[in-house]
């Protein structure tokens, strides 16, 4: 490493300013956030133009409260919702994305057109789509309930019933998120050499066997990367929930990031919000580490 730096001194010198700026933008706030999580910062002691900040170092007290004290039940509840939110989303993103990619990878007429249409959810700015969906889910005037009533069903209390509200935000995000997976998988599928399929075909492999023995193994690293990114993004996805339900009703659609936001900017419990932030970060790092470990293990086999 050091030798490499010495050898390419000029190159490193050139990227140094950019590197420093990155450090400043990324690490300073991060370290600051971590620091706050060890204090008792709130709206009264945070300080402002006129009053000097007076919060104090309180060690692990915040973590104790959230992970072992009176905040635990609340934390676990939100964590459970976060898990449901994340894995349901990624599951459907994956299924839809992979399925559509497989379809689009075949030589069908109008392939380009389908691909473009399917990319629309991705191309539209997500806050616009989120608002559109919020209206569609409206209990009285929403498009979805209108259709349901026309078909003779009763309308659903999409945004005021806890379970339906979670369903609604997940539907919205599935719609928003599958094109990314689809495009990623399509790229992966198209880079599989055709002669592998031909060799397998001559070897006597059926369509399904070709999928099992060529497509899946060849797609493994693409699948790994896409789902890892998908989990991280979805876990941290703030906009959709905040714009549609604002975490409600009764915090039933709150996930860790939205909850931390509410704590910070609605309740001004800044120390606890940063504590949540650090926990989120730790969870994601642990997950990524574990996930890549599993992948390595299957590779060695």
């Amino acid at each position, binding site marked *: 490493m050091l030798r490499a730096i010495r050898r390419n001194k000029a190159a490193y010198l050139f990227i140094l300013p950019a590197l420093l700026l990155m450090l400043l933008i990324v690490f300073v706030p991060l370290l600051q956030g971590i620091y706050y999580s060890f204090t008792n910062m709130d709206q009264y002691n945070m300080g402002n133009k006129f009053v000097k900040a007076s919060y104090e170092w309180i060690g692990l007290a915040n973590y104790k409260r959230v992970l072992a004290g009176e905040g635990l039940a609340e934390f676990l509840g939100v964590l459970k919702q976060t898990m449901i939110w994340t894995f349901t989303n990624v599951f459907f993103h994956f299924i839809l994305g992979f399925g559509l990619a497989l379809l689009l990878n075949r030589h069908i007429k109008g392939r380009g057109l389908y691909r473009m249409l399917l990319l629309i959810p991705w191309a539209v700015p997500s806050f616009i789509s989120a608002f559109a969906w919020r209206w569609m889910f409206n209990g009285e005037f929403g498009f979805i309930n209108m259709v349901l009533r026309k078909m003779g069903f009763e309308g659903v209390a999409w945004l005021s019933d806890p379970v339906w509200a979670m369903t609604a935000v997940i539907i919205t995000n599935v719609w928003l998120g599958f094109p990314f997976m689809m495009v990623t998988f399509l790229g992966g599928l198209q880079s599989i*050499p055709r*002669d*592998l399929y*031909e*060799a*397998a*075909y*001559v*070897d*006597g*492999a059926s369509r399904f*066997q070709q999928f099992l*023995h*060529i497509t899946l*193994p*060849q797609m*493994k690293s693409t699948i790994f990367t896409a789902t890892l990114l998908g989990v991280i993004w979805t876990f941290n996805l703030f906009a959709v929930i905040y714009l549609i339900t604002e975490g409600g009703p009764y915090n039933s659609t709150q996930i860790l990031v939205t909850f931390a936001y509410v704590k910070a900017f609605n309740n001004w419990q800044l120390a606890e919000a940063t504590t949540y932030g650090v926990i989120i970060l730790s969870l994601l790092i642990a997950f990524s580490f574990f996930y890549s470990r599993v992948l390595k293990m299957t590779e060695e086999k």
Partner: protein
Amino acid sequence: MARVQLKHVYKRYTADVATVKDFNLDIADREFLVLVGPSGCGKSTTLRMIAGLEEITEGELLIGDRLVNDVHPKDRDIAMVFQNYALYPHMSIYENMAFGLKLRKVSKAEIDKRVRDAAKILDIEHLLDRKPKALSGGQRQRVALGRAIVREPQVFLMDEPLSNLDAKLRVQMRAEIAKLHQRLQTTVIYVTHDQTEAMTMGDRIVVMKDGLIQQVGTPQEIYNHPNNVFVASFIGSPSMNFLRGNLVEEGGALFFRAEGANVRLPEGRYAALREAGVVGKEVILGIRPENVHDEPMVLDTFPDSTVQADVEVVELLGAESYVYLNLAGQSLVARVAARSEIKPLTKVSLALDINKIHVFHADTEQAIF
């Protein structure tokens, strides 16, 4: 029994263009047949039709007397070796070779026996546990062959299997494939665009151009008696020389005349030339570089068949030299002994060995002899 017959086979990718046209060929059991031709002439297409990877638009394909136009590749009793090897990257070499057999539900013991036998023949036993990416090009090629061998097919189909190897390895693998063919005693259909491969490996060669068979024959036949200018120029390296000139009759003898060339043709050919009706007309004379001589002794033997040309470049290749000449605007290459005294930028006389001459129609480019 694995005779392979193609009867009036056509391939059309689009309605109006035929990529392979009226392909007729009867390949004998155990024959090593080479399809050769320039890029895009339809060699791969033909092979892929035999393999069952492309549909046959029209005509009949028989393998071992069975019509197989609509038979699935796996039931055609063939095995294919692909140009880029097409090894399954995530499987070990052993699994690569065993895959086709496993799908066929061959017993474990039998698979193991066949894989190990093939690995032994190909000298890749020590590689069986590796993944393809940990192998060199030559080793991968062996594995690809091995994967075909374990199937014990009646016919091997190979599409430019050596084109990804370096020159030295190619020569070595060429010999190995030939040896393998003798050992396995099966039919091989082998595609290449390299005429050297075709000449050295084939029992018979099929020369193709633009989807049409130009000539079928043993390497000797094709080399010594090419059907037309295309075959004559494609087979042989360096390529045959072609001179345009007129065929004139003088005092009962026939001469080929062009500026710088006055060549008396052998009497034994007169009948053929007269019959072809080219006396007094323009013709193309073909002569291979090795039949253009500069030794004084040969010049004395063939005083009536000399040409005068300007030497442009002399290329010394060790035992021999290629001399590039300009014969009044037509180019001519001679292959002479390295000790030859020919110097660049001089004018020399060269003798053509008239017994090795070819004459072609100037318009159709078909051979008269």
